[in-house]
Protein backbone atom coordinates (compact mmCIF):
# COMPACT_ATOMS: atom_id res chain seq x y z
CA UNK A 1 0.00 0.00 0.00
CA UNK A 2 0.92 3.65 -0.18
CA UNK A 3 1.40 4.09 3.55
CA UNK A 4 1.53 2.23 6.84
CA UNK A 5 -1.89 0.76 7.53
CA UNK A 6 -3.15 -0.14 10.99
CA UNK A 7 -6.28 -1.93 12.15
CA UNK A 8 -8.50 -1.61 13.99
CA UNK A 9 -8.44 2.19 14.15
CA UNK A 10 -10.47 2.13 17.35
CA UNK A 11 -10.88 -0.63 19.89
CA UNK A 12 -12.76 -0.64 23.18
CA UNK A 13 -11.82 -3.61 25.34
CA UNK A 14 -13.12 -4.72 28.68
CA UNK A 15 -10.48 -5.06 31.36
CA UNK A 16 -9.04 -8.56 31.22
CA UNK A 17 -9.79 -9.02 27.53
CA UNK A 18 -7.05 -9.88 25.03
CA UNK A 19 -6.56 -7.59 22.01
CA UNK A 20 -4.60 -7.88 18.78
CA UNK A 21 -3.52 -4.87 16.75
CA UNK A 22 -2.36 -5.29 13.17
CA UNK A 23 0.17 -3.32 11.16
CA UNK A 24 0.78 -3.45 7.40
CA UNK A 25 4.04 -1.61 6.72
CA UNK A 26 4.99 0.04 3.47
CA UNK A 27 5.86 -2.65 0.95
CA UNK A 28 9.57 -3.45 0.94
CA UNK A 29 10.33 -1.76 4.23
CA UNK A 30 12.81 -3.76 6.27
CA UNK A 31 12.31 -2.12 9.64
CA UNK A 32 9.10 -2.09 11.64
CA UNK A 33 8.51 -0.34 14.95
CA UNK A 34 5.75 -0.22 17.54
CA UNK A 35 5.27 2.84 19.74
CA UNK A 36 2.76 3.58 22.50
CA UNK A 37 1.41 7.10 22.93
CA UNK A 38 -0.53 7.89 26.08
CA UNK A 39 -2.75 10.96 26.22
CA UNK A 40 -0.70 14.16 26.34
CA UNK A 41 2.59 12.34 25.92
CA UNK A 42 4.98 11.68 23.09
CA UNK A 43 5.28 8.25 21.49
CA UNK A 44 7.30 5.75 23.51
CA UNK A 45 9.27 2.94 21.90
CA UNK A 46 7.95 -0.59 22.42
CA UNK A 47 9.73 -2.91 20.01
CA UNK A 48 11.63 -3.16 16.72
CA UNK A 49 11.80 -5.75 13.94
CA UNK A 50 14.29 -6.07 11.15
CA UNK A 51 12.51 -8.31 8.67
CA UNK A 52 11.09 -11.14 10.80
CA UNK A 53 13.66 -10.81 13.59
CA UNK A 54 12.63 -8.97 16.73
CA UNK A 55 15.88 -7.23 17.56
CA UNK A 56 14.73 -5.03 20.40
CA UNK A 57 11.78 -5.50 22.72
CA UNK A 58 13.14 -3.46 25.59
CA UNK A 59 10.19 -1.06 25.58
CA UNK A 60 7.44 -3.64 26.08
CA UNK A 61 5.98 -2.68 29.48
CA UNK A 62 5.19 -6.19 30.70
CA UNK A 63 5.00 -9.81 29.65
CA UNK A 64 1.37 -9.20 28.74
CA UNK A 65 2.65 -7.47 25.60
CA UNK A 66 3.81 -9.59 22.69
CA UNK A 67 4.67 -8.66 19.11
CA UNK A 68 5.42 -10.78 16.07
CA UNK A 69 6.24 -10.37 12.40
CA UNK A 70 6.46 -13.98 11.20
CA UNK A 71 6.98 -13.38 7.48
CA UNK A 72 8.81 -10.10 7.65
CA UNK A 73 5.90 -7.96 6.50
CA UNK A 74 2.66 -7.72 8.54
CA UNK A 75 3.08 -7.39 12.29
CA UNK A 76 0.70 -8.00 15.18
CA UNK A 77 0.93 -6.47 18.64
CA UNK A 78 -0.96 -8.56 21.17
CA UNK A 79 -1.93 -7.40 24.63
CA UNK A 80 -3.18 -10.04 27.02
CA UNK A 81 -5.45 -9.41 30.01
CA UNK A 82 -5.74 -5.70 29.21
CA UNK A 83 -5.68 -3.18 32.03
CA UNK A 84 -6.83 0.42 32.15
CA UNK A 85 -3.26 1.73 31.99
CA UNK A 86 -2.94 0.07 28.57
CA UNK A 87 -5.31 2.70 27.14
CA UNK A 88 -3.28 4.58 24.55
CA UNK A 89 -2.69 5.02 20.85
CA UNK A 90 -0.49 2.27 19.46
CA UNK A 91 1.55 3.54 16.54
CA UNK A 92 3.26 1.34 14.00
CA UNK A 93 6.06 2.71 11.83
CA UNK A 94 8.29 1.35 9.11
CA UNK A 95 11.44 2.39 7.32
CA UNK A 96 13.30 1.23 4.27
CA UNK A 97 16.72 0.62 5.72
CA UNK A 98 17.76 -1.66 8.52
CA UNK A 99 18.63 1.09 10.91
CA UNK A 100 17.44 4.52 11.79
CA UNK A 101 19.65 7.50 11.21
CA UNK A 102 19.10 11.11 10.34
CA UNK A 103 18.61 10.44 6.66
CA UNK A 104 16.40 7.38 6.93
CA UNK A 105 12.80 8.42 7.30
CA UNK A 106 10.43 6.51 9.54
CA UNK A 107 6.85 6.52 8.32
CA UNK A 108 4.10 6.21 10.91
CA UNK A 109 0.63 4.78 10.54
CA UNK A 110 -2.47 6.54 11.86
CA UNK A 111 -2.46 4.43 15.01
CA UNK A 112 -4.84 2.09 16.79
CA UNK A 113 -6.70 3.83 19.59
CA UNK A 114 -7.22 1.41 22.46
CA UNK A 115 -9.55 2.20 25.36
CA UNK A 116 -9.78 -0.29 28.19
CA UNK A 117 -12.92 0.03 30.31
Amino acid sequence: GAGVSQSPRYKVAKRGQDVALRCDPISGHVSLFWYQQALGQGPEFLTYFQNEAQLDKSGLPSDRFFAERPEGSVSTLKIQRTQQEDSAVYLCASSLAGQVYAGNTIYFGEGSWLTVV
Partner: protein
Amino acid sequence: DQQVKQNSPSLSVQEGRISILNCDYTNSMFDYFLWYKKYPAEGPTFLISISSIKDKNEDGRFTVFLNKSAKHLSLHIVPSQPGDSAVYFCAAGGANFGNEKLTFGTGTRLTIIP
Protein backbone atom coordinates in the same frame (compact mmCIF):
# COMPACT_ATOMS: atom_id res chain seq x y z
CA ASP B 1 13.35 10.43 33.41
CA GLN B 2 12.42 12.62 30.46
CA GLN B 3 15.49 12.65 28.23
CA VAL B 4 13.88 14.83 25.57
CA LYS B 5 11.89 17.81 26.80
CA GLN B 6 9.59 20.25 25.10
CA ASN B 7 8.77 22.72 27.83
CA SER B 8 6.17 24.70 25.94
CA PRO B 9 2.96 22.70 25.59
CA SER B 10 1.47 25.30 23.26
CA LEU B 11 2.42 28.24 21.08
CA SER B 12 0.34 30.73 19.09
CA VAL B 13 1.85 32.68 16.21
CA GLN B 14 0.41 35.17 13.74
CA GLU B 15 0.27 34.00 10.13
CA GLY B 16 3.33 35.17 8.21
CA ARG B 17 5.49 35.48 11.30
CA ILE B 18 8.23 33.13 12.46
CA SER B 19 7.37 30.14 14.66
CA ILE B 20 10.13 28.89 16.94
CA LEU B 21 9.70 25.57 18.69
CA ASN B 22 12.24 24.50 21.27
CA CYS B 23 13.54 21.17 22.50
CA ASP B 24 16.08 20.27 25.17
CA TYR B 25 17.75 16.94 25.77
CA THR B 26 19.76 15.55 28.62
CA ASN B 27 21.62 12.60 27.11
CA SER B 28 24.78 13.63 25.27
CA MET B 29 24.88 10.22 23.56
CA PHE B 30 22.13 11.18 21.12
CA ASP B 31 23.65 11.80 17.71
CA TYR B 32 20.71 12.65 15.54
CA PHE B 33 17.51 14.57 16.04
CA LEU B 34 14.24 14.73 14.17
CA TRP B 35 11.09 16.82 14.16
CA TYR B 36 7.70 15.28 13.49
CA LYS B 37 4.40 17.02 12.83
CA LYS B 38 1.11 15.48 13.90
CA TYR B 39 -2.45 16.39 12.93
CA PRO B 40 -5.37 15.11 15.04
CA ALA B 41 -6.24 11.44 14.45
CA GLU B 42 -3.21 10.96 12.20
CA GLY B 43 0.21 9.47 12.79
CA PRO B 44 3.30 11.67 13.13
CA THR B 45 4.81 12.83 9.84
CA PHE B 46 8.54 13.34 9.42
CA LEU B 47 9.44 16.98 8.91
CA ILE B 48 13.20 17.53 9.13
CA SER B 49 16.24 16.03 10.82
CA ILE B 50 19.78 16.96 11.79
CA SER B 51 22.89 14.98 12.57
CA SER B 52 24.99 15.96 15.57
CA ILE B 53 27.90 16.84 13.30
CA LYS B 54 25.91 19.78 11.96
CA ASP B 55 24.49 22.85 13.64
CA LYS B 56 21.89 23.77 11.03
CA ASN B 57 19.73 22.07 8.46
CA GLU B 58 17.30 23.86 6.19
CA ASP B 59 14.44 22.59 4.06
CA GLY B 60 12.22 25.22 2.50
CA ARG B 61 10.37 27.11 5.23
CA PHE B 62 11.77 24.81 7.93
CA THR B 63 15.15 25.16 9.62
CA VAL B 64 16.46 23.16 12.53
CA PHE B 65 19.27 24.51 14.69
CA LEU B 66 21.35 22.34 17.02
CA ASN B 67 23.40 23.68 19.93
CA LYS B 68 25.26 20.67 21.29
CA SER B 69 26.95 22.48 24.14
CA ALA B 70 23.56 23.62 25.43
CA LYS B 71 21.86 20.33 24.48
CA HIS B 72 19.21 22.36 22.74
CA LEU B 73 17.59 22.33 19.36
CA SER B 74 14.96 24.50 17.78
CA LEU B 75 12.70 24.39 14.77
CA HIS B 76 12.06 27.60 12.90
CA ILE B 77 9.12 27.92 10.52
CA VAL B 78 9.06 31.03 8.39
CA PRO B 79 6.71 32.30 7.19
CA SER B 80 4.12 30.48 9.30
CA GLN B 81 0.99 29.33 7.47
CA PRO B 82 -2.41 28.15 8.77
CA GLY B 83 -1.64 24.60 7.62
CA ASP B 84 1.28 24.54 10.03
CA SER B 85 -1.17 24.32 12.94
CA ALA B 86 -0.41 20.92 14.47
CA VAL B 87 1.44 19.24 17.32
CA TYR B 88 5.20 19.13 16.81
CA PHE B 89 7.33 16.43 18.39
CA CYS B 90 11.06 16.54 18.82
CA ALA B 91 12.79 13.12 18.77
CA ALA B 92 16.33 11.89 19.29
CA GLY B 93 18.26 8.72 18.57
CA GLY B 94 21.72 7.36 17.94
CA ALA B 95 24.10 4.47 17.63
CA ASN B 96 24.19 4.10 21.39
CA PHE B 97 20.47 3.39 21.30
CA GLY B 98 20.73 0.66 18.72
CA ASN B 99 19.97 3.09 15.93
CA GLU B 100 16.35 1.97 16.04
CA LYS B 101 14.92 3.58 19.12
CA LEU B 102 13.69 7.15 19.00
CA THR B 103 13.00 9.08 22.21
CA PHE B 104 10.25 11.64 21.79
CA GLY B 105 9.39 14.81 23.66
CA THR B 106 5.85 15.49 24.85
CA GLY B 107 5.05 17.80 21.96
CA THR B 108 4.18 21.45 21.39
CA ARG B 109 0.81 22.42 19.95
CA LEU B 110 1.34 25.20 17.40
CA THR B 111 -1.61 27.37 16.43
CA ILE B 112 -1.24 29.78 13.54
CA ILE B 113 -3.61 32.70 13.82
CA PRO B 114 -4.90 33.99 10.45
